[in-house]
């Protein structure tokens, strides 16, 4: 493993294991390397081991085996130094409903040892940055989910951490709140050089935010790379079509399957994974025309991270998540026309 000097602001883990008493290995020998200033997306369904990994890396849970260094410090032997270097917004926004936003900031800045003059200025700056200045004096019990998450993020930043852990930061948020949080996380990494370790079960979140993604399933990292690399590994795009006449759906499916294996599609549509890539799309259109099948809509889906997950685990991420439904898949799609 590299020393702290080699990756002083990043995260490194080697053969990290966490085994619970009478339970399964929640994390089963994972290796990680997150460079400073990078946003690393840790993607997986509920129960995959994401949060357990975060708890170990933030020193809140000792590993059963293996080693990890965060900001150059060993998470077992140098816990206080790790904690001084990191900020964390854990899975549930742990806030006191009886305190106001500014009272939370006051408590957090004081516990982190900021001097009296700096506490007020830092609190005001962060509340402004997350858009909570107007609501600062309101009790948190009356905040929306998005406001709670933004306050949680502000609290994690009071001591200017070099590394930020965000454990499913947008779960349950509406799209506006989610987008606002993404923008702030991106800004932290690009403008302030903060290293971000982000767990998520939302493919689009990992796709939009992360420079690199690790996919974890049953405690193992099953794939790792940039979203583009991972999708390229899968390679094949999906073509999906809706016939103008519903009765033509079976014939449509048969034509599409000449170009690749059938893929999941809504009941009124048919889809296939193109064996030879998107260059085949023109052939597909010609074949449909030759069969006389009128098409209402034709779409080409680029490979998504869900396809990667499916390829690596044999399951869709959406189906693998038992407690909370995953959001829409993160692949881009392009409508190419109708015939």
């Amino acid at each position, binding site marked *: 493993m590299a020393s702290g000097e080699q990756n002083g602001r990043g995260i490194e883990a080697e053969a990290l294991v966490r085994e619970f008493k009478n339970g399964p290995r929640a994390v089963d020998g994972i290796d990680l390397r997150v460079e400073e200033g990078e946003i690393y997306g840790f993607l997986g369904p509920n129960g995959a081991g994401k949060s357990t990994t975060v708890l170990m890396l933030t020193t*809140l849970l000792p590993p059963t085996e293996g080693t990890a260094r965060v900001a150059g410090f060993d998470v077992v032997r140098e816990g206080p130094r790790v904690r001084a270097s990191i900020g964390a917004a854990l899975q549930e926004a742990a806030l006191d409903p009886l305190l106001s936003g500014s009272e939370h900031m006051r*408590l957090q800045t*004081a516990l982190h*040892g900021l001097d009296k003059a700096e506490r007020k200025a830092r609190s005001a700056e962060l509340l402004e940055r997350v858009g909570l200045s107007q609501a600062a004096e309101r009790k948190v019990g009356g905040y929306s989910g998005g406001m709670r998450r933004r306050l949680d993020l502000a609290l994690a930043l009071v001591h200017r951490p070099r590394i930020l852990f965000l454990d499913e930061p947008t779960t349950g948020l509406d799209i506006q709140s989610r987008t606002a949080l993404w923008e702030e996380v991106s800004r932290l990494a690009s403008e302030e050089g903060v290293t971000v370790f982000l767990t998520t079960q939302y493919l689009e979140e990992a796709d939009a935010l992360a420079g690199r993604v690790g996919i974890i399933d049953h405690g193992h990292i099953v794939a790792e790379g940039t979203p583009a690399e991972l999708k390229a590994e899968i390679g094949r795009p999906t073509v999906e079509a809706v016939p103008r006449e519903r009765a033509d759906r079976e014939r449509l499916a048969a034509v599409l399957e000449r170009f690749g294996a059938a893929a999941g599609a809504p009941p009124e549509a048919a889809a296939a994974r193109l064996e030879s890539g998107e260059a085949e799309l023109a052939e597909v259109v010609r074949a449909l025309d030759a069969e006389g099948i009128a098409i209402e809509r034709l779409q080409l889906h680029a490979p998504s991270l869900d396809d990667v997950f499916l390829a690596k685990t044999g399951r869709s991420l959406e189906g693998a998540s038992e407690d909370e439904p995953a959001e829409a898949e993160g692949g881009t799609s392009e409508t190419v026309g109708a015939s």
Partner: protein
Amino acid sequence: MSGGHLRTQVGQLARRSVLRTLRQPAQIVPALVFPLFLLAVNSNGLAQATNLPGFPTSSYLTFALAVPFMQGALFSVMNTGTDLARDIETGFLNRLALTPLRGAALFSGLLAGSVVLGFVQAATYLTVGLIAGAELVTGVPGALTIVALAVSITVAFGTIGLFAALRTGSGEAVQGLFPMFFVFLFISAMALPLDLIQTDWFRKVATVNPVTYLLEAFRSLLFEGWELDKLALGFGIAGMVLLVGMLAASRALKTRLVRT
């Protein structure tokens, strides 16, 4: 960590604890109303007990006024423990664990709410009791000592609440302790002085029950005068409970907070 930083931590956590207590009328009101209600019922229903030969005062209200201070302390167990259990359940304790927070600061801060509640309770019970006609032979210094003893007992019992919360991590489990503590109160010299309890087993249990001596410390100030041995025993028991409670809670905190 500097001493100044530790003081800041204690101060800020104490501030939070006090704010939480003041913002939860459901914590304060029952702790004030129920003991006074029971005082009213008992002092009326058992007034004839003062006719027993050897009863130490002619006012059963004065004799019974010691009991609300103990009942108030029992409410403190529940409130302090429930607050900490909620912090564990919501993950707020993990948030605190990620700061350079010391365990001593956490406990001191949490118990600050008990101090405030204990003070308000004791002042209210004493004021209502005196207005209703109870005696206080030791005057203003005695009143201050009663409040000090009540606050000490409230804080000491609060550590038991902290321990229970850290061990179980459940507010419901902490609240489940409440009836058990009330049993300790009932099998003490709550209703009669020790030497007037006729049932042999009850007297033996009450004799070894520390609650009896906490009640006697209050009673000495109310109608006997400055009985230093009784006061020393009362404050000593409170100190002992505080020490044992703190040690137990510290151990439980180490188990609960497995941060490296």
